[in-house]
């Protein structure tokens, strides 16, 4: 498809388990972002990949969170030893790197529920 694709759309898991969330950005977009939206909150920045540069991890809430981007395209966000407060919608966005003022385009998110 033409848009940002995320999988799975929903994930329910037990506390303490590890989860992997996947994002397939728009073809040609070299910037990729992960955000999360907790209930009643705005979107919170997690991590940002910009071309081949080292990622900006400043938004990751703890060392249980990590992300990688392979081949400059698909990205996976991994949460280890999940906690109930990790329950949220995890959103991925991508944009063109070159040129200022490029809007980010979002996928439909993964709704993560930790039991």
């Amino acid at each position: 498809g033409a848009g940002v694709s995320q999988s799975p759309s929903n994930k329910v898991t037990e506390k303490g388990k590890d989860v992997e969330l996947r994002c397939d950005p728009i073809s040609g977009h070299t910037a990729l972002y992960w955000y999360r939206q907790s209930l009643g909150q705005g979107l919170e920045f997690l991590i940002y990949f910009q071309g081949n540069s080292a990622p900006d991890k400043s938004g990751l809430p703890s060392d249980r969170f990590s992300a990688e981007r392979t081949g400059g395209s698909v990205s996976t966000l991994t949460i280890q030893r999940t906690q109930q407060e990790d329950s949220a919608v995890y959103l991925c966005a991508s944009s063109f790197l070159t040129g200022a003022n490029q809007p980010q385009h979002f996928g439909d998110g993964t709704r993560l529920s930790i039991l």
Partner: protein
Amino acid sequence: DQQVKQNSPSLSVQEGRISILNCDYTNSMFDYFLWYKKYPAEGPTFLISISSIKDKNEDGRFTVFLNKSAKHLSLHIVPSQPGDSAVYFCAASVTRGNTPLVFGKGTRLSVIA
């Protein structure tokens, strides 16, 4: 400390009337502002943006106004339609390349037929 604030969690407007959604920011380094629209179970959809070198940007029924001295922007939708009912997020960034967006908490707009 919220850098982008949407102080109205909800707004109801009659169909055909103007909807005005407001957003305030505190970081004077922000120079690119966006509005996103979000339906339930979908990701945010980009609606309209404005650079700090402008004070107005218009796209069809949607107009964004920026008042830099007040650190305030607003989204006007006219005429409002029932399909406009959604949550609207204001976002800001420091540009010169792509940077993570800072979002407000959103305003839920209900357009009543």
